């Protein structure tokens, strides 16, 4: 309430100043123009047309020139004041927008990082649950025994668990996508594209039930690698510099660690 009142006061004050300024400019300009046109031609011949002295009347042209100079000067000062004020305001807006953009970028990277980590964790859980499920399917079948009851319970529970984790992964992907959509104007296009690629790839993945009843998490290794690359990129973000560091250098390290076991 008090802030709105003070804002109103300020508006009134600035309006008053501007009105006074315009009034002053109007009066001074009309005064000098009238003076210049109303000036008589009875002047000493020895006086220069622009001379200002005690024994010389100011000529019409002198009135006009000096009047215009004053009016022009005042107007120039007035416009300069307005332009400066506007520039300061624009600079403030630009700087606050930039701050806001950087804050959004930091927030988006932070969130993406945690969401992608959660995605990686979820992928691991699905893989592990599928392994437990396969182990339960593979275990010996004992009809009408307590072991069989436990085996059936395990298969059913783990199957439900896999479906639950799959749904969770779907929700996580939605969250990552919405974060990306919300922050795509502040993030680097390369990061947006890379994240989008990971979302698309992981979103297309399926847990297939084989003919022998086993569950297979198709392309788990590739998707894990992709998610790790993305995490590596997101982790390279510096909150102080607000930029991503180059991560390509790590390739050399990876190569020296012999990642091409199948190379001919």
């Amino acid at each position, binding site marked *: 309430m008090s802030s709105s009142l003070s804002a109103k006061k300020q508006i009134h004050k600035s309006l008053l100043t501007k009105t006074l300024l315009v009034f002053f400019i109007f009066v001074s300009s009309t005064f000098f123009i009238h003076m210049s046109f109303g000036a008589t031609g009875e002047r000493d011949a020895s006086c220069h047309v622009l001379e200002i002295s005690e024994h010389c009347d100011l000529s019409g042209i002198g009135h006009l020139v000096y009047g215009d100079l004053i009016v022009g000067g005042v107007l120039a000062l007035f416009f300069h004041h307005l332009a400066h004020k506007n520039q300061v305001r624009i600079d403030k807006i630009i700087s606050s927008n930039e701050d806001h953009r950087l804050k959004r970028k930091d927030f988006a990277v932070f969130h993406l990082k945690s969401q992608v980590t959660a995605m990686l964790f979820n992928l691991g859980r699905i893989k592990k649950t599928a392994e437990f499920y396969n182990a339960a399917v593979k275990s010996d079948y004992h009809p009408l025994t307590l072991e069989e009851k436990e085996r059936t319970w395990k298969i059913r529970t783990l199957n439900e668990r896999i479906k639950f984790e799959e749904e969770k992964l779907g929700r996580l992907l939605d969250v990552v996508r919405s974060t990306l959509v919300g922050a795509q104007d502040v993030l680097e296009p390369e990061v947006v594209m*890379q994240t989008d*690629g990971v979302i698309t790839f992981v979103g297309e993945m399926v847990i297939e039930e084989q003919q022998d009843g086993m569950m297979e998490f198709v392309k788990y290794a590739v998707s894990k690698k992709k998610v790790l690359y993305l995490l590596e990129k997101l982790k390279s973000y510096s909150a102080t510099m607000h930029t991503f560091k180059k991560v390509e250098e790590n390739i050399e390290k990876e190569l020296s660690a012999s990642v091409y076991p199948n*190379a001919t």
Partner: protein
Amino acid sequence: MFWIDLTQQARDIRKAFGQFSSSKTQVCNTLKPVEIEFDAQEDVLEATQSVDFDKGDVIIKKSGIYLVIAGPQIAKLRGARNRWIDFWLRVNNVDLPNSNVRRVLTDSQEKDVIPMNAVCPLNRGDTLNIMMAAETEGEGIGIEALQPDGEPTIPSIILTLVQLD
């Protein structure tokens, strides 16, 4: 001394590239698209390589614009009717538009290589697949690896990737 210089020069080249091939015959046993698998990566001055693979997935390790050239050695094992076979690219499990090529095969004597080429932006972590699909599933239509006497193996597919920028 020569080798040291060569390795040094190769390390100075920062562009990524990779060449992959398959020594296995792969046929379309389903009417659905089939992913072509690789089993070898040419080890040319390994320090400059920045493209990896896992079966059918070629994994990019350096972001950039890539030129992709693939040459599948197509063949048909049975039948004498005209049957088509298509090949196209897939990036991150999504088909690349306008990348499809088709060849019609009549009998098992016909052998050919159909070139595929594309230029596409790929990011670190992106996966690239070469897909194939055939008109029918029972005639052994697909890509064939051959072993001629006294000659190098003819792989069922050769894929080359070169980073352009």
